[in-house]
């Protein structure tokens, strides 16, 4: 077959291709047939006229043949569709009220789904903008079980590297570590920026080709002395006006000189938010980071053909092989998971929950549109019956009604996409998600495709039942041109039942959603009212990092802290101030160490593996500045903080529970497991603090004076009399006085930190609340329309009842009773659903049982109350039925 023939035969599938030529050809073909046949008949002895007639008889109905052939070609289908579309448009234009309401409802439903699907798509389905994201894995190398020596615990996990580098199941293992350091390029004030130390392989792992220059690991990998840096595209534009002359420039990071080797591509952002990447092994200088970390996260790519389980098994084998002799055998500490699941992590549950919620909202919206279509049934009935009498089959009627419905949902879908587009912008701006995730939330092809599918599904779901109902009545129904009113005489009990069923379903779905939402609201309320263990009012915090040669020695750092503290405490409006390695909910600087402690027999130190506690060096004044109550013993004194002071410690209540349950801990000793130093003597007990988040349990904590652990990265905590941010500039001035070269991070109040830690639950609760509100409104609209209909249909019955002496109150009672039944059954079904599904919410709830009675009682009661209130309108209408008019109409 030649190309042209092939193209022709392919084009022939399009009904419009050469349409007129095809029609003419068919005519000619049939004419030839008729002529031949007539000739034969003539030969058999018929007159020319009779022969022609006979030929027509043997052929059959010529028009019908043409129709049939056209159907083979596919014209009819297209023609009918176009006709239905045109007709549907006219019908919709004629009832603008119905169209507006239906389109509006569907736009809300589809818009909510589109915008939320963009989150599912960006966050859950395609979270990582890297090549082969599903092959990336992360793992933590647990601390080597080896004695810790001296200050600045070295990264013992690094002993693993030679082994990991030769693992078979993974390739390009890369360590990375993030932090904030002082940055200066010789112009202006030093700045705190986000730095990532990355080990060799980083560029190969992510397949990075720098936008400018080269990646440092490409040649001199792993040499601790090479001070090269990569800068982010953002920093390049901000500080260097995107100038290519940036390359040989030198920058200062934590008082160390680095030469800029390259600028990374603008779309590369890992670890999220990083502005400068520097080579990892620089532990010897120990200046950039505090050196308190035990191990850094590792990221790698699964080797071709290797599975997650194989990689995990191999790492565990390495762990066993590298354990130092005498290590007590214990469960493996290696944790390896896919980068995707780690990044997506805790956002998965809430996102799926919200998606399910908008799905329910859309179902309710569909039911509402079904109600509206059913409501139009009577007015369409005459038309349908007429069409049916003129020969339209039921399938034809259904198709026409569905086309109209498709038009409505297409308009709804279009409008919904506009809404969704706005929603996506809002989500990107408001969702408390890491930047790497929120960037993926866009209106892309898959979101468009999803919206299209949802639109079609919506049309089918909301359109098919009413179309079937109306067409069933219409086919063979009586045409009564005299009475275009409601189809009282033709009222089908099954249609009424179907409407009731829709109403009940809507209430059930709304009740399900409302119950879940109230659970989350209740849980959020509990979370807000949880006692964090400190007093968050009037507390200012800021972070400082001591780098550079003038802070090499511990006593130099201690002097800095002492200076800042005494000057800050002297400021007007400052009540107390203290330094610590971390603040609660700050998310940084917290480390967990294994401890050995003195038990019953004095002198013997228990050493249980993994009996960890938070290790928090802090100055005097820290507890009072944060309002952490002292429960027993004494607070740190300034003497404790002097260099070379006797090692003391203050432990938290849960640490007492852990180490000396039921005993008095004062005077007992403990030390960091494996360390050789003098044990700390416990001098006091403080209350528990929610360190990780308001919903997380308070960890056991061991506080030691700064003199014992002269950290170089610390947080200043200031308790003020008035607005804490008002003293911020004075505190900044204090730092400048003590050391003009030292940069502090932005000032944050503890209130802000608390609010930040509540951002995720707040966001999902508000969003779910919005959806549940929408669901309730739509469901109530559904019940309202059921009742309005039922009143319209029963006008005659009501008239008779009233004529027989029924009181208006009884009539409205009758209507409300039915509404109460519908909402009651719906609410019970919804509660049953909530009961069955509530355990899925467990991970999102805090302090509230998934079967929380408050939510399970409040949701249906509120919903039923709103539904009944809405049905008061049709009930009043029923009350006002004039028996005379009602009866006369019949």
């Amino acid at each position: 077959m030649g190309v042209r023939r092939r193209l022709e035969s392919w084009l022939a599938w399009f009904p419009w291709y050469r349409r007129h030529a095809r029609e003419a050809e068919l005519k000619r073909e049939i004419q030839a047939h008729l002529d031949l046949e007539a000739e034969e008949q003539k030969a058999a002895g018929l007159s020319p006229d009779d022969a022609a007639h006979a030929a027509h008889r043997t052929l059959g109905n010529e028009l019908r043949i043409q129709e049939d052939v056209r159907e083979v070609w596919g014209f009819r289908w297209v023609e009918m569709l176009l006709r239905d579309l045109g007709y549907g448009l006219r019908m919709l234009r004629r009832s603008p009220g119905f169209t507006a309401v239906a389109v509006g409802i569907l736009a809300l439903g589809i818009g909510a789904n589109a915008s939320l699907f963009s989150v599912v798509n960006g966050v859950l389905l395609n979270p990582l903008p890297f090549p082969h994201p599903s092959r990336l894995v992360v793992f933590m190398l647990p601390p080597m079980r080896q004695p810790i020596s001296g200050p600045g615990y070295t990264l013992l996990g690094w002993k693993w590297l030679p082994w990991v580098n030769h693992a078979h199941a993974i390739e390009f293992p890369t360590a990375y570590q993030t932090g904030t350091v002082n940055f200066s390029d010789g112009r202006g004030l030093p700045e705190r920026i986000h730095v990532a130390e990355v080990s060799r392989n980083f560029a190969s792992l992510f397949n990075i080709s720098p936008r400018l220059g080269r990646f440092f690991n490409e040649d001199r990998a792993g040499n601790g002395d090479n001070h090269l840096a990569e800068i982010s595209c953002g920093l390049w534009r901000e500080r260097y006006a995107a100038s290519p002359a940036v390359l040989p420039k030198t920058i200062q990071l934590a008082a160390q000189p680095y030469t800029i080797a390259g600028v990374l591509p603008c779309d590369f952002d890992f670890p999220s938010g990083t502005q400068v990447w520097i080579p990892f092994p620089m532990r010897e200088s120990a200046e950039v980071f505090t050196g308190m970390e035990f191990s850094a996260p590792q990221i790698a790519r699964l080797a071709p053909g290797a599975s997650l389980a194989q990689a995990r098994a191999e790492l565990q084998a390495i762990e066993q092989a590298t354990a130092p002799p005498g290590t007590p055998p214990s469960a493996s500490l290696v944790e390896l998971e896919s980068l995707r699941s780690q990044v997506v992590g805790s956002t998965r549950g809430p996102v799926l929950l919200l998606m399910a919620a908008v799905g329910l909202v859309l179902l309710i919206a569909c039911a509402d549109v079904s109600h509206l279509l059913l409501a139009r049934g009577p007015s369409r009935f005459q038309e349908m019956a007429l069409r049916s009498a003129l020969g339209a089959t039921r399938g034809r009627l259904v198709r026409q009604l569905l086309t109209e419905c498709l038009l409505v949902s297409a308009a709804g879908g279009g409008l919904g996409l506009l809404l969704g587009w706005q929603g996506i912008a809002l989500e990107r701006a408001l969702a408390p998600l890491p930047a790497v995730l929120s960037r993926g939330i866009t209106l892309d092809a898959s979101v468009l495709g999803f919206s299209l599918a949802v639109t079609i599904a919506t049309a089918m779901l909301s359109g098919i039942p009413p179309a079937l109902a109306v067409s069933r009545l219409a086919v063979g129904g009586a045409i009564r041109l005299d009475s275009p009113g409601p189809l009282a005489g033709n009222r089908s009990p099954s249609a009424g039942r179907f409407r009731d069923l829709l109403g009940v379903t809507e209430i059930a779905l709304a009740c399900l959603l409302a119950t879940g939402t109230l659970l989350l609201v209740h849980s959020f309320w509990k979370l807000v009212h949880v006692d964090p263990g400190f007093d968050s009012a009037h507390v200012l915090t800021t972070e400082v990092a001591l780098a550079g040669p003038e802070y090499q020695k511990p006593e130099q750092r201690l002097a800095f802290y002492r200076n800042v503290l005494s000057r800050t405490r002297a400021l007007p409006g400052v009540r107390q101030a203290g330094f610590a390695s971390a603040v609660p909910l700050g998310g940084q600087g917290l480390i967990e160490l294994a401890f050995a402690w003195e038990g019953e027999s004095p002198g013997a130190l228990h050493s249980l593996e993994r009996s960890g506690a938070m290790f928090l060096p802090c100055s005097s004044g820290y507890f009072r500045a944060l309002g952490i109550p002292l429960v027993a013993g004494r607070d740190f004194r300034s003497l404790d903080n002097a260099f070379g002071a006797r090692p003391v410690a203050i432990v938290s209540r849960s640490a007492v529970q852990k180490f000396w349950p039921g005993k008095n801990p004062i005077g007992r000793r403990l030390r960091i497991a494996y360390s050789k130093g003098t044990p700390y003597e416990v001098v006091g007990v403080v209350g528990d603090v929610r360190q990780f988040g308001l919903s997380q349990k308070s960890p056991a904590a061991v506080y030691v004076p700064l003199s014992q652990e002269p950290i170089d990265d610390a947080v200043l905590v200031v308790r003020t009399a008035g607005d804490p941010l008002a003293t911020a500039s004075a505190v900044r001035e204090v730092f400048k006085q003590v050391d003009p070269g030292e940069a502090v991070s932005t000032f944050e109040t503890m209130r802000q930190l608390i609010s930040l830690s509540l951002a995720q639950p707040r966001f999902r609760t508000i969003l779910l609340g919005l959806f549940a509100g929408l669901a309730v409104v739509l469901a109530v609209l559904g019940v309202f329309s059921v009742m309005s209909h039922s009143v319209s249909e029963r006008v005659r019955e009501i008239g008779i009842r009233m004529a027989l002496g029924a009181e208006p109150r009884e009539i409205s009672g009758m209507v409300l009773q039915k509404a109460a039944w519908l909402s009651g059954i719906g609410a019970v079904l919804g509660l049953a659903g909530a009961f069955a599904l509530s355990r899925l919410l467990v991970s999102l709830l805090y302090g509230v049982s998934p079967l929380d009675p408050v939510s399970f009682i409040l949701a249906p009661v509120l919903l039923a109350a709103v539904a009944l209130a809405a049905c008061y309108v049709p009930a009043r209408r029923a009350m006002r039925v004039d028996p005379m008019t009602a009866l006369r109409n019949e």
Partner: protein
Amino acid sequence: MTLQEDSKSRIELMQGTLDMLVLRTLVLGPAHGHEIAKHIQRTTDDVLQVEHGSLYPALHRLERKGWVASKWEMPKGGKREFKYYRLTPAGKKQLTAEHSKWRRLVASIGRVMEPAREG
């Protein structure tokens, strides 16, 4: 298509049977619609009379499926052009398949209706 003898015993032939007959007719060589109709009529001794009209939708359907191809041609010594249909290789394959299906069908119906023959 009807059994002409007795209008009471009219049966509807199964869907596709006409297609099979048309394909079988075209095995003998290209033919136009009228010839096909006449051929079926003649070979069945007028038992099966094709309602000529039903032939054309069938022919166009077969052409669309690629089982037959068509061309306007002048017959030898003729005065006017006719649209001649001929079997394509795909059509031949289809005919073989239809034929064997039909044989099996007839054989199995025969076994039910006249079990004595089985011996």
